[in-house]
């Protein structure tokens, strides 16, 4: 490609590529990697500013398959949130992207997930949700729906954990649900999530073609397509294109995000305003009863302070502070010693 298209910082899509995926062909996770890569390219984000973090699972492997020019840490099962927290404490200027699975988040990692959300740590947290443990070959996860059937015939009887509902309740400031098969919606949602400052939890239904894409599964492509109930159509206007956005206030909700970009929700459902927490919770619960896969930006609060804002830290990354700022002078030690004598 001689005249490869460049983004606003002069990079081509190739600059955002990763290693070759070793996931199954057709795995929803691959489609999400593709969307993430495109999002970063289209937003013109310098790959070196991004830190990718993941736990363990097929989903958590996927950071190896996009943006090799960004540092990445594939950690341990269910503990990505704490590692991401530490990385951001060390360097508050990083754009943190967490990639996890439904097992990684809703089972072994639920404790860390809860606390990351509670802190409103500024990071995009993508749950690649297939309702099973892909990497350990298809056991149910805690997001499997009641009545969903494994290939072996086993039926899930326990109620699912709705990670979006949980995230809203715990204080996440951007919560959305999407589908790996819905390019348009997922793209707009990812762009808005990256432009948001705070914890953005995106539960993305991502069918596992090897273990959970059959008849009887509620996380298959076919089922998700059939039951997808988008709340609105999303469009995203990045800050560098914001030349006085026009929209019809009657049919569109416009949310100005932290960096000045705009997320526009063209109402399919009248009166749904994602800035209303109660309404969001009610609508999600209704969808559960109706058996809908409710997608869209469910909740957003663009102004809440993040964990990093609350710590009163210097602007410079702690990681690179010069020695004279982190080792107090000899006189300080003398003073302490005098007080102990």
């Amino acid at each position, binding site marked *: 490609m001689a005249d490869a298209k460049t983004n606003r910082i002069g990079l081509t899509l190739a600059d955002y590529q990763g290693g070759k995926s070793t996931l199954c062909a057709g795995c929803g996770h691959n489609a999400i990697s593709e969307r993430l890569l495109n999002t970063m390219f289209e937003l013109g984000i310098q790959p070196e500013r991004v830190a990718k973090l993941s736990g363990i699972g097929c989903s958590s492997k996927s*950071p190896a398959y996009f943006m090799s020019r960004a540092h990445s840490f594939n950690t341990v099962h269910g503990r990505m949130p704490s590692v991401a927290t530490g990385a951001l404490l060390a360097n508050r200027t990083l754009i943190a992207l967490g990639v996890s699975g439904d097992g990684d988040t809703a089972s072994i990692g639920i404790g860390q997930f809860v606390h990351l959300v509670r802190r409103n740590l500024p990071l995009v947290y993508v749950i690649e949700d297939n309702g099973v443990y892909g990497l350990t070959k298809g056991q149910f996860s805690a997001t499997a729906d009641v009545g969903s059937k494994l290939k072996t015939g086993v039926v899930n009887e326990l109620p699912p954990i709705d990670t979006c509902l949980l995230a809203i309740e715990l204080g996440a400031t951007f919560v959305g649900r999407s589908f790996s098969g819905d390019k348009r919606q997922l793209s707009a949602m990812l762009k808005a999530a990256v432009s948001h400052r705070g914890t953005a939890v995106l539960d993305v239904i991502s069918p596992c073609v090897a273990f959970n894409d059959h008849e009887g599964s509620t996380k298959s492509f076919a089922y998700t397509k059939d039951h997808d109930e988008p709340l609105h159509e999303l469009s995203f206007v990045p800050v560098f294109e914001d030349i006085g956005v026009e929209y019809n206030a009657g049919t569109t909700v416009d949310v100005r995000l932290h960096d000045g970009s705009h997320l526009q929700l063209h109402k399919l459902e009248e009166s749904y305003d994602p800035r209303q927490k109660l309404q969001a919770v009610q609508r999600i619960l209704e969808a559960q009863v109706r058996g809908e896969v409710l997608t869209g930006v469910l909740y957003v609060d663009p102004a809440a302070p993040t964990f990093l804002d609350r710590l009163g830290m210097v602007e410079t990354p702690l990681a690179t502070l010069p020695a004279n700022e982190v080792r107090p002078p000899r006189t300080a030690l003398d003073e302490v010693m005098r007080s102990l004598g």
Partner: protein
Amino acid sequence: MTTVVNDVSLQVATVNGSGSQSANMVLLRAIFQMGVPVSGKNLFPSNIAGLPTWYTIRASKDGWVGRKKEIDVLVAMNAESAKEDVASLRPGSAVVYDEPLALSSVRSDVAFYPVPFDKVVHPISSEAKTKKLLRNMAYVGVVAQLLELEMAEVERAIGKHFAKKAKALELNLAAARAGFDFAKAQLKKTDPFVVRRMDATRGKIIIDGNSAAALGAMFGGVTVVTWYPITPSSSLVESLISYMGRYRIGPDGKATYAIVQAEDELAAIGMVMGAGWAGARAMTATAGPGISLMSEFAGLGYFAEVPAVIWDVQRVGPSTGLPTRTSQGDVLSTAFLSHGDTRHLLLLPATVEECFQFGWEAFEYAEHFQTPVFVLSDLDIGMNNWMAEPFRYPDRPIHRGKVLSKEDLDRLGGFERYRDVDGDGIGYRTLPGTDHPAAAYFARGTGHNEKAQYSERSDDWERNLARLERKVHNARTALPAPVLQGEGAEVGIIAYGSSHHAMLEAREQLRSEKKLDVDYLRVRAYPFHDDVEAFVKNHARVYVVEQNRDGQLAGLLKLDLTAELVPRLRSVAHIPGLPLDARSVTEEVAAREGR
């Protein structure tokens, strides 16, 4: 009766939550200010209020600061434990007791000093709660009079302790004086113990090991601290919070650090991993149960090669065990913490000075070797007050280890994270956010090649593990070397950590009482320095003294020593849940040596 000067062990028996800490600190300080070497040990229950607690103060002209088994003077304030406490004394001891406890009939071979504490403090305050607190300062006055402490020093110590609370200061001074006056008028001294001014504490400080560790970390340039509260490590982070708030706030009022109370120890170590990977000097502090939880991440840190500092202030396990008692019970499990072929660097501080020194040096080792460093302190060092030389400011500038900058990458064109370029087993790393297209690498706990790419190839695996082994093995010469005392004896003793204080005294007891000369090697780090093997080579029999049941350090030594040296080792392992005392070591070694 010959007077015993400056060799007394005083024990105060109270219930916890009664506010006796201030009184005990005042006694300790007053003795210290009189120039007499002194140490204090708090023996407390895992409980907030109402259970027996003992505080022991030892004044020793010879400078012994380890626990002494025998109590010379007992202050019995606790009805529940009083009879047993008195029964356990040696003949010739003294007992100050709250008169209503009516202890004088328990035995006739100790000196009894009944004090009606309620009556003594009554004129000072009529408020019940205040009176209860003042009883403590009243026993300070009584003890001061009996031991002939200088009342001026007692008052100075009270002044220091209550410097910021004028009303409390006044009340406490009055209570101490009331106790002193009562003793002077009503008690006739019949025991031999007195404290007289010396000049052995000039220029020294008093501090607990956890505060010392916190100071060390601060002067080591720590930037990220995470923790989950657990005795006996909590006070380490709590003092760090207060020191950092004072000395690490920039002129703009902004902190050059972050301290985060995590949701558990998994998260605490996870945050340290993330922060260390991203380039911060990151640490956490915990104790046994927390260390167990950190196991999986410890292996990730070792294998992905992430610098981290983890303080383990050891308490008694297994399980929740004795949360408020001291031990050296985590040595073996921490050396190999996590599954597979994991092996860690351990630092073993014995004194508060070393808590400070290792506190900053740990970051140097962690970043140089790109691996977690565990500092194994314990409750005795960490939570008790010790005399010490003022700490020495770090004598080396901060070195961040092999970190490539953008400029380095411009020059080199690229790098391979896990390639052993320099032959020391240590690769070069980059930090996230480094503005260079070749800066990134993929950190992972899965098998990887030199380029940090996923690999299941046997040759990659073996090469990587061999390099890690080399790296950790090489560290033995860089870590604090063992300290040798004595030369030429047939018998050697190896000890470490807080056992040191009992060991010093035991060595003297063995020499003077048992006519047995022993050489003493204090180990300060793992993997072991070559001097350790040389020491075993030079001694026919080597006793390894430690505070656990199984002889854990002896076990580690057996793994490392050449086979013919192993039979020379003899384990002297004690775990009564109390700090090690010299007498126990002396008697056991002497018996096994036929003395």
